[in-house]
């Protein structure tokens, strides 16, 4: 167990190191940072000064270490575009993305697991078929189209929900701008959360269904039936728990995916999150923001993966107890 966690941590560190290297190379080699900052007009002297100020004359490993050191302190430099520290930009936007991602993850997981179980248990039923067909449409509809349609129908035509931004926010703990506590914030959250969650929902649902069907075919389920256990126990006690083992991984990964997919939703709904920051950065070739976002997302993913692995331990005794031998 400890060994497992330590190994995972080491791997996580390795991943982060690689990501940092990519991020660093992005900053260092994609375009000339000095050129990006000063433009062509600048004098040789300006350039040399900035070059020295940025430490670009040091050996590359030193630069990399400094990059990592700065990154560890949350310093990713200054955005070329917004002329503000990247860390500030991200810190301002992270709450928005996290609130959106978590809401839609909740929506996707709860509904996805529920529908997955339902369609697996009522395999032939018309409702299951309808849900399955619908889910295929859900997978085939690009997220941005869903968003556009939702905006058009529910915001423009019906006027039920808000079409952009996150409404009024309140400041929690002095740094977290939360939109979950205001009516306009909640009204703003509905459409983006659905948009973002729909794709994940269909994925989770189809996965749960497939896994559940697989599990329902196993000998131990047959044996559980043969032992005369009630259907409820067989389905929810035995089948579901076994289904959850692989599903947990996917759901864990989905949470990561949701944060990344938020890019699209945030673009469509003008949601002031890190995703939109990133997409703007890409369009503006704003390298510091890109590399910071990369590091941030990698960090989130690594953290989520770690949590998923630990959850695995909780669910599957085969991992928990060392096989006596």
């Amino acid at each position, binding site marked *: 167990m*400890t*060994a*497992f966690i*330590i*190994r995972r941590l*080491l791997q996580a560190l390795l991943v982060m190191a690689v990501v940092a290297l990519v991020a660093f190379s992005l900053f260092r080699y994609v375009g000339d940072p000095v050129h990006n900052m000063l433009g062509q007009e600048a004098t040789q002297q300006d350039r040399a000064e900035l070059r020295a100020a940025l430490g670009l004359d040091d050996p590359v490993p030193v630069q990399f270490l400094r990059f990592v050191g700065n990154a560890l302190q949350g310093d990713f430099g200054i955005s070329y575009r917004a002329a503000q520290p990247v860390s500030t930009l991200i810190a301002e936007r992270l709450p928005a993305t996290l609130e959106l991602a978590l809401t839609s993850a909740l929506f996707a997981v709860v509904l996805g697991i529920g529908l997955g179980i339902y369609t697996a248990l009522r395999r032939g039923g018309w409702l299951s078929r309808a849900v399955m067909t619908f889910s295929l449409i859900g997978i085939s509809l690009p997220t941005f189209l869903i968003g556009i349609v939702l905006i058009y129908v529910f915001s423009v035509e019906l006027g039920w929900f808000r079409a952009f931004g996150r409404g009024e926010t309140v400041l929690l703990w002095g740094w977290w701008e939360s939109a979950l506590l205001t009516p306009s914030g909640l009204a703003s959250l509905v459409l983006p959360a659905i948009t973002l969650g729909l794709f994940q929902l269909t994925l989770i649902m189809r996965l749960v269904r497939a896994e559940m069907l697989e599990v329902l075919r196993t000998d131990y389920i047959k044996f559980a039936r043969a032992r005369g256990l009630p259907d409820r126990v067989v389905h929810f006690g035995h089948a579901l728990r076994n289904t959850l083992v692989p599903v947990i991984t996917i759901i864990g990964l989905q949470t990561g995916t949701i944060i990344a997919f938020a890019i699209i939703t945030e673009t469509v709904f003008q949601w002031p999150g890190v995703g939109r920051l990133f997409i703007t950065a890409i369009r503006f070739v704003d390298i510091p923001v890109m590399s910071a976002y990369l590091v941030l997302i990698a960090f989130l993913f690594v953290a989520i993966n770690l949590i998923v692995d630990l959850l695995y331990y909780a669910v599957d005794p085969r991992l928990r107890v*060392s096989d006596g*031998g």
Partner: protein
Amino acid sequence: MTADRARAGEAPLLQAENLQRHFDVSKPLLNRLLEGGGRRILRAVDGLDFSIPRGGTYALVGESGCGKSTVARLTVGLYPPSGGRLTFDGQDITDLARQRGRRAMAVRQRLQMIFQDPYASLNPLWRVGAIIAEPLRVLGLEPSRRRRDVRAGELLEQVGLAARDRYKYPHEFSGGQRQRISIARALANSPEFIVCDEPTSALDVSVQAQILNLMRDLQREHGLTYLFISHDMAVVKHMADHVGVMYLGRIVEEAPKGRLFSAPRHPYTQMLLQAIPSLDKRDDPREAIRGEVPNPLAPPTGCLFHPRCPHANERCRQEVPRLHATREGSRVACHGVEEGRLTLAQAREARAG
């Protein structure tokens, strides 16, 4: 008979000396550091000596996991041994698994293998004709595609199928028929020596009989030498001249068939024989059978069988017995037999149950 020839001093076709194969199944380094415990070596085959005379059938029996298949793979060069020596027709083939090139091919041409699972041993996407002709093609024995095709048909007929079956795919055949196809493939390069790894254990008895008969017929016809592996004592008795009983990677008893079955000396052999349900006797209390095969990663000290042996004493718990010849011409690795605690009479009695 073949046994006579062997006795006449002719060199064995295949000889294994102190053959070993170890698998490193250690946990990753980090776990070992944190949780203690050193490397874990699984001694799947741990010092085997046997020789197979030309034209004979040497059988290896033992329970699951005792290393039978590993021996099979070692002898045909699918694994390199971790130690010991393998000689084929006087030629050292210990390193066959690592060798390419003409010399190795010349050896491979004389060896073949038949596998257990009739469903997995044929590539489902290849036509039967191509499967059978593969050895001819790979070993370069028959460059002409047409002639290979014709030859595949002949081989199919030899094993009791129709020549036109070569255009079909494996899934169009039943288990027994597939095993015949496997045999046809094994015969394609006219090998002298065939390793049969439980060739019938996945088949129904009625089909098993067909295959066993076929194998015997082919042996006679082509003068084949078999290394026959099985966990079924009755099948072994039917097929073999000489039997080696394996337990946890070692041979515990080796004897000519007749002797082994009439007077098994090693307590494990005796137990195996008792464990077979008899068609004639009923309701015998088979309480003598105890325990299960230990985890090969944590084998017992001393005689590997001692935890399950009714005759074990302190020495058995500590000292590893070596194979030694008995007066009757068999070899047994048992302190009890060596010390005379377990006599021939006891053996006969045990057999009679």
